[in-house]
């Protein structure tokens, strides 16, 4: 009798745990939906007053008089992001190729922990480094070569600091992709007389290209959402930047800078929540696409 009692308890515990775990899983899946709906709900106030189009393309930003044009911020965000990826991509590609195809084992042993640490350094530390090294460098050495005066707190500074922040992500994704390319392909290429670089360029990179695109999209969404570092080095002046040496004011910086006073002005809170919603939607789409592509690539290589 006691044995059946024990068995029943064990089975009941299993069934209970199963339900509980399912609940937890589903609730955490719903967070995505809840965040989206919550932010949308908060943005309805401003969406009701201005059309989506006028919000996205308007140039005037003066919360005091109720004008909310997000174009300067969107343009700044896009410029900073594109710039950072343009700097990071070649460096990350070459580094990853070097580490997977050419480097001696001791070099990878040194570089991997460094990438780990770079990936773990908090964004405020990157921001501090940017203000101490990159900003003065642009203001005193690099900027004067091209323009008469620049404060250093520029689009370029944001792009450089962000690129350093996404390089570890890109390199580790690339290494994963490149080492998944079957060795037979490389051997076949080598036996046809290709040099190692030709093999890397024509076989490894080409084979991994869908994955590379997905990784870049992932890096874009990381750079796009990065807040504190860009807030510290971009200058944050409202206006569309016309050169690398102009100040920029990306969306995350806008939100972080103004959360304090957003409750004091009508529609201001709603406008900032609309900015968050915008970032959420863009990053959601970018992330989902790149993840699906990466999964497909992974499956293809496994066959």
């Amino acid at each position, binding site marked *: 009798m006691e044995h059946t009692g024990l068995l029943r308890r*064990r089975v009941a*515990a*299993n069934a209970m745990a*199963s339900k509980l*775990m*399912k609940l*937890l*899983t589903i609730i*955490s*899946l719903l*967070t995505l939906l809840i*965040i989206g709906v*919550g*932010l949308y709900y*908060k943005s309805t106030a401003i969406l009701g007053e201005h059309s989506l189009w006028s919000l996205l393309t308007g140039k005037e930003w003066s919360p005091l008089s109720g004008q909310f044009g997000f174009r300067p911020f969107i343009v700044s965000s896009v410029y900073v992001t594109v710039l950072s990826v343009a700097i990071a991509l070649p460096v*990350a*590609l*070459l*580094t990853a*190729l*070097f*580490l997977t195809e*050419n480097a001696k084992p001791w*070099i990878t042993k040194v*570089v991997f*922990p*460094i990438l*780990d*640490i*770079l990936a*773990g*350094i*908090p*964004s405020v*530390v990157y921001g*501090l*480094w940017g*203000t*101490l*090294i990159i900003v003065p460098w642009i203001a005193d050495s690099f900027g004067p070569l091209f323009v008469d005066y620049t404060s250093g707190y520029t689009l370029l500074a944001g792009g450089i600091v962000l690129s350093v922040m996404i*390089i570890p992500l890109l390199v580790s994704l690339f290494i994963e992709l490149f080492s998944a390319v079957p060795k037979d392909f490389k051997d076949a290429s080598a036996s046809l007389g290709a*040099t*190692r*670089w*030709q093999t890397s360029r024509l076989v490894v990179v080409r084979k991994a290209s869908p994955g590379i695109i997905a990784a870049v999209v*992932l890096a874009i*969404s990381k750079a796009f*959402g990065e*807040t*504190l570092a860009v807030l510290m080095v971009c200058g944050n002046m409202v206006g569309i930047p016309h050169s690398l040496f102009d100040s920029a004011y990306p969306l995350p910086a806008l*939100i*972080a800078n103004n*959360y304090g006073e957003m*409750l004091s002005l009508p529609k201001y809170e709603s406008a*900032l*929540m609309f900015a*968050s919603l915008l*970032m959420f939607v863009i*990053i959601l789409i970018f*992330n989902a696409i790149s993840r699906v592509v990466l999964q497909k690539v992974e499956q293809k290589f496994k066959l």
Partner: protein
Amino acid sequence: MKLKFVEERIFNLLMVLATLVVFGFFASIIWTIARTGFPSLTWEMVSQLPGGGFYLGKDGGILNAIAGSLMIVFASTLLGLAISIPIVFYINVYLKKASRLAYFARLSFDVLFGIPSIVYGAFAFTIMIFFGLKTSLLGGIIVITLLIIPIFVRSMDEVAKSVSKDLLDAAYSLGATKLESCGVVLRQIAPGIATATLLSVGRAIGDAAGVLFTAGFTDNIPTALNEPAATLPLSVFFQLSSPIPEVRERAYAAALLLTIIVLVLSVTGRLVTGRFSKNRIK
């Protein structure tokens, strides 16, 4: 010499250069933070609360931020573990390999992983307004927990996926229920849990954008969940914007402290992963 060999040479050089550039960035960051931070990193800095006139360059330390950060990180790591371990078990033990729910769960956690902390922060802020809550320790803990659950799930799932199905079958054949078989999986993913924890602690302690809205800032150590809490990254950020050099120097020291914590976590991560692997069956 043939063109392809010239090309090979050039690109070999470029690859080495690129790697050196990455190394150079790393060295420059560590050197800058260490050089500016060490002179002002004193015992007083880490053991005292901000005194009167602290933000004008007078006496005091950043114990408020250290304590606040530790509280938030500790609580949210525990909460995050408590929530994500069952999720990993559910996806890997209870659901079938080809299950749709498992597919969507993995995809959603991947996407959640990419959502920037400022969006989490803004969202949590609206929720807090909705419930009439002020910036508080609790708010910070909730945001950081939300932020690190995807890290936990993703990195533990990566390890749990590779646990051999035979191992589970062996447990079932001995009459174990699925719940009891989770114990077997737990031993297999122990190194994964350790690495995931260190990863999340690193991210949790360095995150600023999320707590900016939700935890607020204070000069005291919070004694209850509804009191605001200071955090290290924000302490760096706020002190850095000061026009007074002494205050800025303390920001450098706080940044160095933060960097040291992250470095230590990263190094222990590598060591611990090895130690926890003794029960691992390949």
